[in-house]
């Protein structure tokens, strides 16, 4: 048998006494192989990758690169050895050109610190071709779509002559088409002998793309085996350590009166005459492809972004000037799609985040904060949602796992006692176990009479959890399905239906 390209042996790592990696063994068997790595948030995937990428030192264990010991002392070290990490949050400078991004350290043809743009651009063009991009390398990053940016990251790895490329959740912000393109590029690279480690929560992708899968749980590798011996459900039970009977809990509810009604929302080219209504106690899905205008609709309803025309009615009453302040006061909550930027105060504590949206309810005389009830309420919500935190007054949001972060956002809104809850991609970047809990909480809220608008690009979860699903395409609502008619085909057909006349939107 050949020497493996990379092998990690008995790797250990602790942070302030907590063991996050326990005797981890992992092997990339041959050049060009793709290893899938799955596990819940906080299982240790990122730590492992950061050790591999020279960002963190290991406590003990060995790493062998093609049989030789590999001890990176910094990220630059790892770069030079040919190991490239592509993080979930891309590492690109939007104000610079594509070529400049590709050759951030070490531009070709540069002498004495002077750049040769001609050499740089011509080499960049070659690298771009390998990832299937046909764009002038001198053009700026900022105009490019997320899909293209992801490919530029891959190109960056190629420009550095990477032998091993590690992908961390590369598809979370890609459209279906962009994803397919990325996968075909990954396969091509694999054929040219570049090995890859592919980390993802999307288990179907892992099964489709990888030769082998390693499952990691609580810092230990549970197994590494060929995908042919793996199924989605075995992976899930290995990940969570128990069997999940059902991925999507659906609950029968009693829809009540209409609480929210939107009429004729228009906003430039993004929203075209949108009308819909929500009843208390129902979970309504909102599906659509990237750029269909789902998040824009939510932002417009919540009053974050202005609309050109249209009316919102809350419990039959016209809302004259919708704003986050008004909505929170009257009972709407809104989970945005990006919890790091708009959901949480990352450097602040769990408690501070939990009470953020309901601070006005903790007001005592002289505007003072009622710290006792603040303590009590945040403690009760932590218990209710089973948020894992060692100390709510000391642990900051950024040190929580993705699932727990999202639970904190949910908890923040629970404290405002909402009657309408708009959730935009609430399970993005959240592991299977936490996803299940989030669905249950949404069901629970609906059963208590809350109307929920569930925006998602994962068809499975919408089909599994919603009472009905509206589909948006190109800034308009292209159709609606009731539970009996839920199929992925039907959803996709509506999602790609192009609407040329705005009248069609009102069916």
């Amino acid at each position, binding site marked *: 048998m050949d020497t493996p390209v990379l092998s990690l042996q008995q790797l250990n790592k602790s942070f302030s006494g907590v063991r996050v990696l326990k005797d981890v063994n992992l092997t990339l068997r041959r050049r060009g192989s793709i290893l899938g790595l799955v596990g819940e948030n906080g299982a240790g995937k990122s730590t492992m990758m950061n050790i591999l990428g020279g960002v963190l030192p290991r406590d003990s264990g060995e790493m062998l690169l093609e049989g030789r010991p590999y001890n990176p002392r910094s990220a630059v070290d790892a770069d030079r050895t040919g190991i490239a990490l592509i993080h979930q949050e891309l590492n690109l400078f939007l104000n610079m050109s594509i070529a400049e991004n590709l050759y951030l350290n070490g531009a070709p043809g540069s002498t004495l610190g002077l750049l040769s743009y001609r050499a740089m651009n011509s080499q960049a063009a070659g690298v771009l071709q390998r990832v299937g991009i046909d764009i002038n390398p001198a053009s700026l990053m900022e105009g490019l779509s997320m899909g293209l940016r992801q490919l530029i990251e891959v190109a960056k790895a190629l420009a550095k002559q990477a032998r091993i490329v590690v992908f961390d959740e590369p598809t979370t912000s890609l459209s279906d088409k962009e994803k397919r393109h990325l996968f075909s590029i990954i396969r091509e690279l694999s054929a040219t002998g570049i090995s890859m480690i592919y980390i993802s929560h999307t288990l179907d992708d892992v099964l489709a793309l990888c030769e082998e899968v390693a499952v990691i749980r609580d810092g230990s590798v549970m197994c590494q085996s060929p995908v042919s011996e793996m199924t989605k459900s075995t992976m899930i039970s290995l990940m969570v350590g128990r069997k999940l009977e059902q991925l999507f809990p659906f609950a029968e509810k009693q829809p009540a009166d209409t609480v929210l009604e939107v009429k004729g929302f228009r906003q430039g080219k993004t929203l075209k005459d949108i009308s819909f209504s929500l009843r208390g106690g129902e979970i309504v899905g909102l599906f659509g492809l990237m750029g269909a205008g789902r998040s824009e609709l939510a932002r417009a309803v919540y009053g974050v972004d202005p609309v050109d025309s249209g009316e919102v009615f809350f419990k039959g009453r016209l809302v004259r000037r919708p704003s*986050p302040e008004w909505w929170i006061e009257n009972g709407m909550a809104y989970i*945005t799609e990006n919890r790091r930027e708009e959901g949480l*105060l*990352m*450097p*602040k504590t769990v408690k501070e985040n939990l009470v*953020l949206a309901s*601070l006005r309810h903790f007001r005592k005389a002289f*505007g003072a*904060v009622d710290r006792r009830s603040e303590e009590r309420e945040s403690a009760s919500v932590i218990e209710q949602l089973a948020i894992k935190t060692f100390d709510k007054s000391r642990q900051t949001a950024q040190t929580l796992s993705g699932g727990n972060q999202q639970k904190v956002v949910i908890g923040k809104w629970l404290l405002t006692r909402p009657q309408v809850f708009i959730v935009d991609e609430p399970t993005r970047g959240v592991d299977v176990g936490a996803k299940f809990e989030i669905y249950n909480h949404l069901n629970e809220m609906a059963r208590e009479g809350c109307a929920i608008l569930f925006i998602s690009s994962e068809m499975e979860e919408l089909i599994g959890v919603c009472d009905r699903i509206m589909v948006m395409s190109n800034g308009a609502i292209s159709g609606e399905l009731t539970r009996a008619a839920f199929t992925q085909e039907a959803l996709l057909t509506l999602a790609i239906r192009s609407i040329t006349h705005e009248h069609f939107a009102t069916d």
Partner: protein
Amino acid sequence: MLFFVVFFLFSLLFVDKFANPVNLLNIVVECADLIILSCGMTFVFMNGGIDFSVTATLGLGSVLGAKVMTMGGSPLVLTVLGVVVMLAIGVGLGALNGVAITRLRMPSFIATMATQLIFSGFALWYTQSATIGGLPAPFLSIGRGTLFGVQMPVFITVIVVAITAFVLHRTVLGRYIFAVGTNHRTSRISGIPVKRTIFTLFLFSGGLAAISGIIMTSRSAAGMPALGKSMLMDIVAAVVIGGTAVTGGKGSILGTVTGAILIVVLNNSLNLLGIQWYVINALKGAMIVLVALLGVLRTAGER
């Protein structure tokens, strides 16, 4: 904090004349000015901003207040009138900064640099750079008088510190300030009035500049256009040394108070030791570097 205590004891023991009651009193009064101004600056810093116009606000308030008080009439009425005018000017100019920053979306760095030039320019033009003396007696006692045997400025400072600390650390507004300083977008989605909160920060900054302007005008017994002008860098230094993050969202009034006292003691004792002012400045710079380093180390240690 520890550094501060050590330094203070060191000064008491070894610096000649430092322990002299007159000098100590001097320190206390100087501290009052710096503490009040730095508390105002702390508010603006909380949103990652800065207010360069505080000293100019103070100067303009000083001359206009003095002008009002020399109009003639009952001394007590004039004093009240003068204090009200100075406070109103402080809060008003703060509001002007607030509007420029929240409505016109100017960065505070630029906006307050501009208003600093405008305010101090106006004060100089108005007085033709002359001082306005002949202030009523009750007004003079604000800066020089005592109450229950305690210097009036000390009294005022304690009240200011108590109120600002309460607002920042115990009230809903304070929570808003910390939230907005940490992340505008999350705050907005969470229903926090972001612009109104930022606006309030400048009201505090302007208002506190006015209060310290009242004390300083009273002590110098004249309205002066350039009053407090040399203090700007010390104010910023006090806030930074006090541990308030320049990027916003982090800081405390207690830290700022410590920073301010430290700077005054440093100025004073090194001065008495006969050390040149440029050496003192270099030492202050070194101290800021030290604090910044400690901050870096602390954040590195968190991971």
